[in-house]
């Protein structure tokens, strides 16, 4: 039996359901799709999101003819590139600012009556996930669709962390509320049920406090609080190691900035592995650097790369590169060093890239309890070189890009114990979460996302025992107070269905 929120959402013309973290948003979306009439277009922002929604739809047995799931930008690209004369769009694969232009171009297309006929012939309605992450251009696109068919959205303004990246281009929540009517706010913290219900309840209260701008006392609640000591990093390490995870349970350590994650991963000796972004810019850059260097320079690049990825990389080995470049003789006594040296010489003397693999293997096998801090990056570099062997006409950098692009669609695995930022882990769920720098998360949104990642335990390391944060953006700037039941409020009030 679909829930009443799902039914109300499906029946609405421009309905909105607010979904706090872990309250069953994707499940609700799937339910609403299944009780809608006709084929539904389901829009989200990332490929991971697409996979998650598809997963729920399959689980609920919704026939695949009933829906089409795609990212908003994917839809824009589909229409802009099918009708280039109208859209003016010619770039095949957008980069950076191209995406903004793409949305404008596709809006032109979607406003044409013939194209609207196509959309109406294909879909009876639209659902949009994570509406708080929409850019202005995406919002315009969706409003255009709302002119011809029902558009129902779900989102949480308190998780609007993408918006923080580009304040000018994001769609403010106040704007969303002008066009959509709030039907309900989910209030059952499903993520924590049967795991740590007290934590789930505490987090709902946290939400209320953040919205109201009240203090958050970390010393209270079903959380593990570690005040930072003079040795901050030590404190963080201790918190990470201190998580009592059972076999098979996942852990996430959260830092505000990515480079901090990488640094921490090295010190955690591989116990936690740093998450890479989907694009993995570092992979692209290093591929380029390794490929464009030659001779001993290339070997040096590989060594530098290894130093980045591997914790405890011996400086003696690093020196080999410099010495050989200067023409100095190197005669190591250790067998493993000799192997490395030979591999370096092969790289120096051969132009083919595949011998780089040999050098990488030799480096990993060094007899020092080495630990890959950036395991994913290392793995991907090896995979890139292997694939490049099959198709050497394409550059190494392009090969790397292709691999990551495929990954974007298929999905990669997250290591069991990972380190990431709120941006990287948004939407994901782990058993144990360790927020390593609560005080550094200056915005309520960032803090909320970080704290809601773990379903069994939450450990917080903070400079301040009591956090005082400004109210979230959607409250601050547009005066949507929490006393008004119409706007955002807690308590799961269901609006009357006749209102929309």
């Amino acid at each position, binding site marked *: 039996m679909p829930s009443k929120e799902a039914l109300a959402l499906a029946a609405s013309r421009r309905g909105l359901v607010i979904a706090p973290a872990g309250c069953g948003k994707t499940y609700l979306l799937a339910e609403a799709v299944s009780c809608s009439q006709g084929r539904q277009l389901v829009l989200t922002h990332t490929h991971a999101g697409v996979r998650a929604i598809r997963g729920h739809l399959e689980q609920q047995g919704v026939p695949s003819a009933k829906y*089409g799931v795609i990212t908003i930008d994917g839809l824009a690209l*589909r*229409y802009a*590139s*099918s*009708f*280039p*004369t*109208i859209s003016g769009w010619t770039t095949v694969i957008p980069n950076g600012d191209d995406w903004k232009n793409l949305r404008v171009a596709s809006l032109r297309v979607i406003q*044409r*009556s*013939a*194209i609207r*006929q*196509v*959309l*109406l*012939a*294909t879909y009876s309605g639209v659902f949009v996930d994570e509406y708080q992450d929409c850019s202005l251009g995406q919002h315009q696109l969706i409003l255009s669709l709302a002119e011809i068919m029902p558009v129902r959205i779900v989102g949480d303004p308190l998780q609007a962390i993408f918006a923080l990246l580009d304040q000018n281009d994001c769609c403010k929540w106040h704007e969303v509320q002008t066009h959509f009517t709030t039907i309900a706010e989910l209030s059952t913290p499903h993520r924590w049920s049967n795991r740590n219900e007290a934590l789930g309840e505490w987090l709902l209260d946290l939400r209320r406090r953040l919205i109201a701008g009240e203090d958050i006392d970390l010393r209270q609640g079903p959380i593990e609080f570690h005040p930072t000591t003079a040795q901050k990093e030590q404190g963080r390490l201790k918190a990470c190691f201190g998580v009592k995870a059972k076999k098979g349970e996942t852990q996430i350590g959260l830092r505000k900035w990515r480079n901090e994650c990488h640094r921490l991963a090295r010190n955690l000796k591989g116990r936690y592995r740093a998450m890479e972004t989907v694009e993995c810019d570092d992979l692209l850059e290093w591929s380029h650097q390794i490929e464009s260097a030659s001779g001993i320079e290339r070997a040096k690049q590989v060594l530098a790369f290894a130093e980045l990825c591997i914790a405890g990389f011996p400086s003696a080995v690093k020196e080999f590169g410099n010495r050989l470049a200067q023409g100095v003789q190197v005669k190591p006594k250790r067998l493993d060093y000799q192997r490395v040296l030979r591999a370096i010489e092969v790289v120096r003397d051969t132009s083919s890239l595949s011998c780089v693999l040999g050098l990488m293997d030799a480096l990993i096998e060094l007899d020092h309890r080495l630990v890959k801090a950036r395991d994913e990056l290392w793995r991907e570099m090896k995979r890139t070189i292997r694939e490049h062997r099959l198709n050497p006409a394409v550059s190494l950098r392009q090969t790397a890009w292709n691999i990551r692009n495929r990954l974007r669609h298929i999905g990669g695995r997250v290591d069991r114990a990972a380190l990431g930022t709120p941006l990287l882990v948004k939407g994901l769920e782990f058993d144990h979460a360790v927020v390593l720098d609560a005080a550094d998360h200056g915005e309520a949104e960032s803090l909320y996302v970080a704290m809601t990642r773990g379903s069994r335990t939450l450990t917080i390391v903070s400079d301040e025992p009591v956090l005082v944060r400004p109210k979230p953006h959607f409250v601050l700037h547009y005066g949507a107070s929490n006393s008004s039941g119409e706007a955002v409020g807690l308590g799961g009030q269901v609006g009357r269905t006749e209102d929309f």
Partner: protein
Amino acid sequence: MLIRHISIDNFRGIKSLDWHVDGWLICLIGPGDSTKTTILDAIELALLPRWNIPFSDADFYKADTTSPIRIQVTLGHLTDDLLSEDRCGLFLRGYKPFKPFNDDPDDGWEPVVTLRLRVGDDLEPHWELVKDAVNEAKQLSWRDRERFCMARLGNDVERHLTWSRGSALARITENASDANSMLALVNRAANEAIFSTSQKELASAAYRAKTAAKRFGVQLPDLSAGLDTRSQGFGTGALSLHDSSRVPVRATGLGSRRLTGLAIQHEGLGADSILLIDEIEHGLEPHRIRRLIKRLCEDRLPDAKSKEQPVAKGQVITTTHSPTPIMSLDVKSLRFVRSKNGVTSVTHVHGSQVEALQPIARTYSHAFLARKIVVCEGKTEEAMLRGLDDLWEKLHDGSSFATCGVVPINGGGRSSGPPIAIEFRRLGYDVTFLGDSDEPLSVSASEMENLGITVSLWPGNMATEERVCTDIPLIALQQFLTIATERFTEATVRESLKKQLGTALPKCELQIDTLIANGLSEEVLRRAIGKAAKSKGGEWFKDITTGELLGGVIAAHLAEIPSSPLAKTLSVLEGWVYAE
């Protein structure tokens, strides 16, 4: 759904064709080998959902397989099913009649989709959706082509009267298992019949087989002949429609059989389908042709009188060699197909000429099926030609206008005649304009000649009647006068002549020789009679019977005046009629 545009390259007799279809009811007419049927065949191959269409070298223009066959059909008024994103939605293009395509369906353009059938020298057909913006054309399977709602009616009629697989009758059968269980019954009953009849010869042979087998050590029970289930038995194709006297419907006359088959095919089709019918008149009398056309147009085409259906939903494209459809259809539906050096052209009647040609379509429908047309200025010339037809038939060994594919029509006067002649010429007919030279035509003779029309005018700035009366021997002139007097009374004729002469006639008999004897000069008399024959209130040639009589008189005496302007002009016309 409608076909908006067709282009064909290198298919059978068509090296190239580029045709903006622009209509819902299209009737293709054209002389033999004008490639009309080839056009229908091409449409059928492009849209028909069959999965095994064999192509051979003969399907290529001049059997040259190095130039691939390309048939592109552009469809509009698409069904919602086809408009969907996963079908043709993302391949839409923009169309405006007679303009180059817009690759995208911008506002103000009709959204259409272009389907291409391509066959290279490997003889493998490829069906694709075409759009410039898309690098890789989208391949279409036969299931996709099923959605294009196209059907060719009236062919393979006998098959559609049976329940064989894929036949129209099979398609309108809701539950196929009915047919199958009936067949099982039939096969069983046949077997029963065999076993229960006394088998005589077969039985004795069976007995011999049994004894022989026994000698070889095989003990068999009593044997007899029966139907082996492994052999053919009766398939669904054997089930066909029969009447109450157990006579199969396929035994009815051609027309009824064809109409029945066609009706069954039509039954399973929606109003938005595109129908192709080759030779719509085949086997049918005029009233049945008319009825067929009416049925096909119902629900499918715009009905101006009905508010519910202002717009066409479907389309009918047909070919014909019969005047009946031409008579019943609006001249706007006609399309004139011509083929020259492999280039096929399809023209339609120009908007400004529709009103002028509509009555011609009704009265002279066979003219549209002719090769050559004589556009006569008026009834006089037309009547004269009727008379001449008999004469020339005798002179040319039985070849008449009809045998040469020549049809004279009345152009309706000096202002409307020339534009009609021009229009027919533009539509591809071989045209002669036969007219008076006494007053200027609406389009000058030289202008018409520049367009390829042969212009035949009487020398001497005279009307036909005048020319005739000036040139024919006196004895023929006398016959004119006699016929006119009998037809119109002597008093009327006298009056008429008096008017033309300007003076009173001598009081004597109304006979040529008497009048001349009484002082009237021959020349003056000839001219007066000529003018009188033409004058208003007494046009002698205008009624068909009199006209034909007079035509006969001319014909009878033409041989006597070979050097006269009349005879010379007519002999040029004769040359044109009988030229190959």
